[in-house]
């Protein structure tokens, strides 16, 4: 530290912010090295706390990856993006959920094409529910070490399961599409089994901005059962292609995209429980 100190007039101008930038830099440099001059600087504690908070958050906040930026462009609220981004961060649960969902889709496609007509109706009924159950299990007690804390938060419950299911099934659909394009064989059929699950998850979340979540799940589940019932009744032997055929797949995709739009437009209604 030098024997020179900033004089009072210069320090007052520095405090007021009326110094030219070059002199501010010079005073800053001196203040970094001189504790006695630092003590003379008058600091507004509110301003200092505010600035410290901004610096602290900038240093510690999780970095925004491409997924984060993409979801932000879609208009999803920041806290929802944090929740979705954390879904793959719980690695074992993520791995287990994704692998199980893909395995279910492949198994369902195989069974559906194998001419096992007896199981058709059962397969059709449970197709959209199985992936959601798989995700709920993968993020449950055996795989998630923090389940006890998570389960006692207000976010715990069907909504959290559906957000996670939407994330996992979306990734599984993308993986299935890539595999279907790159690999020989009827891979599209496996993807087709995942679309109703995606629709169930994202559709229920979208509908829950209008009615209560259990009711939303009931409405969509009822529509699915009615559709399956009609298909099985009218086309007993060819109900599978009807429910999972190209036209139906396009319908699911369109409906899922509509649900995403509804979810985006009505996103402020997603947190009716927020009281703080």
């Amino acid at each position: 530290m030098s024997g020179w100190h900033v004089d009072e007039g210069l320090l007052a101008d520095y405090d007021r912010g009326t110094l030219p930038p070059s002199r501010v830099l010079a005073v800053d440099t001196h203040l970094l090295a001189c504790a006695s001059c630092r003590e003379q600087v008058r600091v507004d504690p509110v301003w200092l706390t505010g600035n410290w908070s901004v610096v602290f958050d900038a240093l510690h906040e999780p970095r925004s990856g491409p997924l984060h930026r993409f979801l932000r462009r879609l208009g999803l609220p920041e806290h929802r993006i944090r929740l979705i981004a954390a879904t793959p961060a719980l690695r074992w649960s993520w791995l287990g959920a994704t692998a199980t969902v893909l395995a279910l889709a492949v198994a369902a496609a195989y069974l559906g094409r194998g001419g096992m007509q007896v199981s058709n109706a059962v397969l059709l009924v449970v197709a959209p529910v199985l992936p959601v159950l798989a995700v709920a299990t993968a993020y449950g007690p055996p795989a998630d070490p923090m389940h006890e804390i998570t389960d006692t938060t207000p976010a715990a419950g069907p909504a959290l399961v559906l957000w996670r299911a939407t994330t996992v099934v979306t990734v599984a659909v993308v993986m299935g599409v890539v595999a279907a394009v790159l690999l020989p064989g009827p891979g599209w059929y496996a993807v087709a089994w995942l679309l109703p699950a995606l629709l169930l998850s994202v559709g229920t979340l979208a509908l829950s901005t209008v009615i209560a979540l259990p009711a939303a799940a009931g409405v969509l589940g009822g529509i699915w059962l009615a559709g399956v019932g009609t298909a099985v009744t009218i086309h007993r032997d060819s109900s599978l292609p009807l429910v999972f055929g190209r036209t139906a797949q396009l319908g699911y995709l369109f409906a899922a995209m509509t649900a995403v739009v509804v979810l985006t437009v009505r996103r402020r209604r997603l947190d009716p429980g927020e009281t703080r």
Partner: protein
Amino acid sequence: MNTVSIDGLGKRYGATPALDGLDLELGTGVTGFLGPNGAGKTTLLRCLATALAPDRGRLRILGLDPAVPAQRTELRRRIGYLPQNPGLYPQFTAYDLLDYVAVLKELTDGRRRRAEVRRVLDEVDLTDRARTKVRKLSGGMRQRLGLALALLGQPALLILDEPTVGIDPEQRMLFRALISRVGESHTVLLSTHQTEDVGALCERVVVMNAGRAAFDGTPRQLINRADGRVWLSTTAPTGSQPYWRNADGLYRRLGDRPDDGRPAQPTLEDGYLLLLHRSAPARVAR
């Protein structure tokens, strides 16, 4: 005013009763739960934290019934829970983990959430470890981080299951200071095996045994139960009387006066051991 009303609470694991018709009324301040392993402390705290549904009985917490889904969700907004094994994600940084749990606790406004994360980090003295991954934190720091998670959202009811296990005396002091500060205005329920923690922190102590409250009163009242029943002697007892050998070579004996016994100042631990010895003598270890 009572924050927690427990009426005939029962919970079984198979044929084993963990809670057996428990009745309690708990209010503001720090209440400590003591008891041997398997006494039902953790089961009770898990029921109160809404992690576990009881088989029978009624709970009323902060005026809400956790058996009703909508009230359970509202209740979860107002409680903070640190389980015995919090299982914190090792790959998260302290800041990330707090931010994630804050989202789960419905702190949806980004600026307020970050301010809350900074506040609890500061409360548990982990601000300088905000960027450290959980797997690189010491055991005591992880416990403090667990406590910070429970403190998020300034809960009206704080439920802590053995929060001071495995931490050094200095960190335990920090815990005590923090918990006692929270207990001034909120309800804190604390399960522990450390009678020193109960003596230092709690206005009220409940000793659990076999799923029931074997004692409910102040720490002083529990100590008083050992008045005239703690002795220093040169000989070890021959029966099932609890005792241990002090560093100075004398036997500290609880119960009836030995022939050469001279009275000793009773402690909370003496009162606790005598209470349990009376209800289940074979379970008191020498």
